[in-house]
């Protein structure tokens, strides 16, 4: 068959280009080689570094336990590739299968994998964002700069109490630095885990000496005459004196370079099918452009086929492996990416893990342990079934709840468990903020309509 012949040729001497040389890009490259791809492989990354790991940046690096340049991702195998680091992809010509680079070069491909991830949402006022002492935290350079500046800092202001912001606050407290956290929502982590768990997170922060101010916004940052951050103004009219501020307002997907390419890419990411094949703007699936990692959003059977984008480490790895496999496989051998979302964080001495999509939950039941002890398992329900679970220092139970999610088990769970407390006898509203209001940092974004909605809304690019 002609199609098979092409595939054979592709596997043997085709050209595969990966844009985004970080976690997803690296794991995809390894998988391609492991599965027998012998053609040319090019990895394009705008950062000058070999792939490195981001989770330690807000944890061990800020604590000074390791330095930012020691976070290189371990390579699982030696493989042959053409690395083009320190140069950004600036455009995509789908018709002629070319990627344009910032240095004017163009790279041709037979198959393309896009793994450009996300970048930290910057402070919206440019002049204020440029003040000395104002940081975001996404890259190795960000982490190195921030870690240097924390030495001798007088007070650190963290703007936004999502996972990253909370981890930064935790690291600062562990270093003994005074920290103020300002969060627009009623508690930390509410975008990701809801208000019930958020309250427990708030207590945790306060017990560790964080000056936590919720229900407030930072309205402006002010510098001194030398352009150094001096203080921040809050929406309640108060001021916080701080010489370091970390803007932790969530992330924006790296898709700007794909504008006008004809690919279905936008601020919410690049839509793809369950096999990681990207959609074009007409909603037609491509067969030579694949996506993986934080930048991708794909429909998930367990969650009503809504499109999910996950900013989760494990998802990036799993999706990259599936994408790589599918890129060089016949359609009958392709596999769907049906990863159950799973996320971990560690802050204030507590290990937080979640599976499923908590933000889809309407209600939560504290199935084991107690919120007040900061050691519990919360189970989220959606329309009578288990949709997610979160644990604070109770990781070992998570596997059970993952199976409950996978089998659409009924919610609330009709059975008793060990360590069920009186507060776990009845579910309560999970208390997520109105989804139409943007939150700083949900680590899962639901960005589609459920098929039962049957609605189409036309949203012009410029209103």
């Amino acid at each position, binding site marked *: 068959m002609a199609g098979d012949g092409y595939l054979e040729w592709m596997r043997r001497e085709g050209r595969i280009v990966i844009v985004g040389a970080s976690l997803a890009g690296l794991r995809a490259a390894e998988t391609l080689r492991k599965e027998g791809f012998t053609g040319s492989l090019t990895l394009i990354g705008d950062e000058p570094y070999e792939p490195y790991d981001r989770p330690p940046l807000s944890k061990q690096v800020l604590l000074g336990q390791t330095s930012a340049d020691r976070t290189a991702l371990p390579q699982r195998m030696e493989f042959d590739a053409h690395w083009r680091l320190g140069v950004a992809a600036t455009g995509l010509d789908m018709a002629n299968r070319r990627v344009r680079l910032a240095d004017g070069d163009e790279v041709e491909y037979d198959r393309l994998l896009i793994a450009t991830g996300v970048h930290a949402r910057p402070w919206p006022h440019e002049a204020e964002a440029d003040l000395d002492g104002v940081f975001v935290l996404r890259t190795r350079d960000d982490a190195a700069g921030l870690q240097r500046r924390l030495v001798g800092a007088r007070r650190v202001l963290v703007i936004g109490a999502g996972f990253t912001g909370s981890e930064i606050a935790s690291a600062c407290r562990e270093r003994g630095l005074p920290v103020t956290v300002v969060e627009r929502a009623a508690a930390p982590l509410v975008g990701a885990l809801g208000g019930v768990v958020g309250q427990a997170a708030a207590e945790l922060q306060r017990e560790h000496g964080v000056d936590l101010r919720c229900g407030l916004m930072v309205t402006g940052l002010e510098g001194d005459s030398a352009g150094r951050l001096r203080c921040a103004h809050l929406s309640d009219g108060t001021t916080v004196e701080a010489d370091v501020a970390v803007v932790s307002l969530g992330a924006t997907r790296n898709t700007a370079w794909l504008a006008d390419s004809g690919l279905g890419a936008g601020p919410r990411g690049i839509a793809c099918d369950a096999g990681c094949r990207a959609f074009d703007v007409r909603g037609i699936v491509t067969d030579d452009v694949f996506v993986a990692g934080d930048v991708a959003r794909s429909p998930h059977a367990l969650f009503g086929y809504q499109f999910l984008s996950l900013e989760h480490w494990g998802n990036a790895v799993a999706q990259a492996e599936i994408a790589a496999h599918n890129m060089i496989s016949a359609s009958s051998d392709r596999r769907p990416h049906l990863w159950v979302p799973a996320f971990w964080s560690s802050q204030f001495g507590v290990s937080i893990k979640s599976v499923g999509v908590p933000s889809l939950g309407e209600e939560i039941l504290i199935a084991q342990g107690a919120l007040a002890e900061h050691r519990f398992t919360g189970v989220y329900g959606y329309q009578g079934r288990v949709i997610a679970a979160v644990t604070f220092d109770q990781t*070992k139970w998570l*596997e059970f709840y993952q199976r409950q999610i996978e089998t659409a088990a009924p919610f609330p769970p009709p059975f008793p468990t060990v360590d069920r407390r009186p507060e776990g006898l009845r579910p309560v509203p999970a208390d997520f903020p109105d989804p139409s209001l943007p939150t700083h940092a949900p680590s899962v974004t639901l960005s589609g309509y459920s098929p039962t909605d049957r609605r189409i809304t036309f949203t012009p690019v410029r209103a």
Partner: protein
Amino acid sequence: MTQATLLGQILDHANRADPYPLYAELRKTPVYREEDTNTYVVSNYWEIKGLLHDPRISSDARNLSPRAAGALPDQEEEESALPPTFLKLDPPEHDRLRRMTMRPFGPPETPRRVHNMRGELSKIVSDLIDDFGDREQIDLVDNFSYPFPVTVICRLLGIPREDEARFHTWADTIAASLDPDPSEDPTERRRIAQTARTDLGVYLAGLIDERRKAPGDDMLSALATEHGPDGQMSQMEVLSTAALLLIAGHETTVNLITNGMLTLLRNPDVLKRLRAEPQLAVPLVEELLRFEPPVQLLPQRTTLADIEVAGTTIPKGASLWLVLASGNRDPQRFLDPDRFDPDRKDNQHLGLGSGIHNCFGAPLARLEAQIALTELARRLDNPRLLEDPPPYRQNAVLRGPRHLNIAFDGCRP
């Protein structure tokens, strides 16, 4: 083979040397029910794994329904005045006691304790092997596998050297009581064990008092004096925890080392490799924990609700047995499971359990076995089995040879 006899056969000492064909039979009925005792036996890897993480499963015997008597004839008779150890408790009590015990033992508070014992462990091992003298034949169990872990526990708990011998005697007596010899008079045996328990308890209580006044950096001092976020252990809790560390940390390691040497002698090519590449010890011990786990099954769990496992409903309060050793040989999970293969990839065995009750002493047990087997392989010249299979202990749960008579041409320095 009729199903009703399967459990009986597994418990029957005649099948102790090779229970694996029976486990294979058992796996054909993933949830096997023994009518008389209301015991449900689970033998497949994935089902066991799931149940080890299932919060509807309790380790607290108080949740057993009165009907579920348990099929183990002379189940360990730890009847004593001590409160139950965390092995037999559910959260939150389990978590609290285990956390407090972990503080002086492992990460995050004491990450290097086990690692730092490496030199001492090697020394104990060398001394024991030196003691073989110019004999060319030994019983590995009596001359090596038994004394080694007890000595280690003495050092860990901070038992003074001059008391180690007494401690060994009590430990041996208690251990023997866990492995009843049917030819002995049970009343007499129970009395002897009870006396040993009492003597050991009195001794430990005295030692704890001393440590309270003048703490050292041993575990007993830490358990007796530390005020962590969970508060302090009561005297009784310290005692029962110390007894748990002694029994659990010792019974199992004996079998791990003995089973290990037996397996190596049956696989001379692997023994030869270990001699040449000592770093093989790490994956080798993992494979051993899969292939011949010292704890064959967990017989003391029960259900808090009716739960469905592989199409069978296990009723609330049933006695639940999880046959770890069978899960470890489940062909649905492990390729060629009856082959001993230290190069096995993805070896997520159940040998140390999983979930909240996973083996507390695992890091120490692993290190003890690695050092012991590497040293035996290195120093014994041409070792060979004198009896295969060797005589086994009575116990079906803590399974291992009672004696392992081996010969060799000499001991290298």
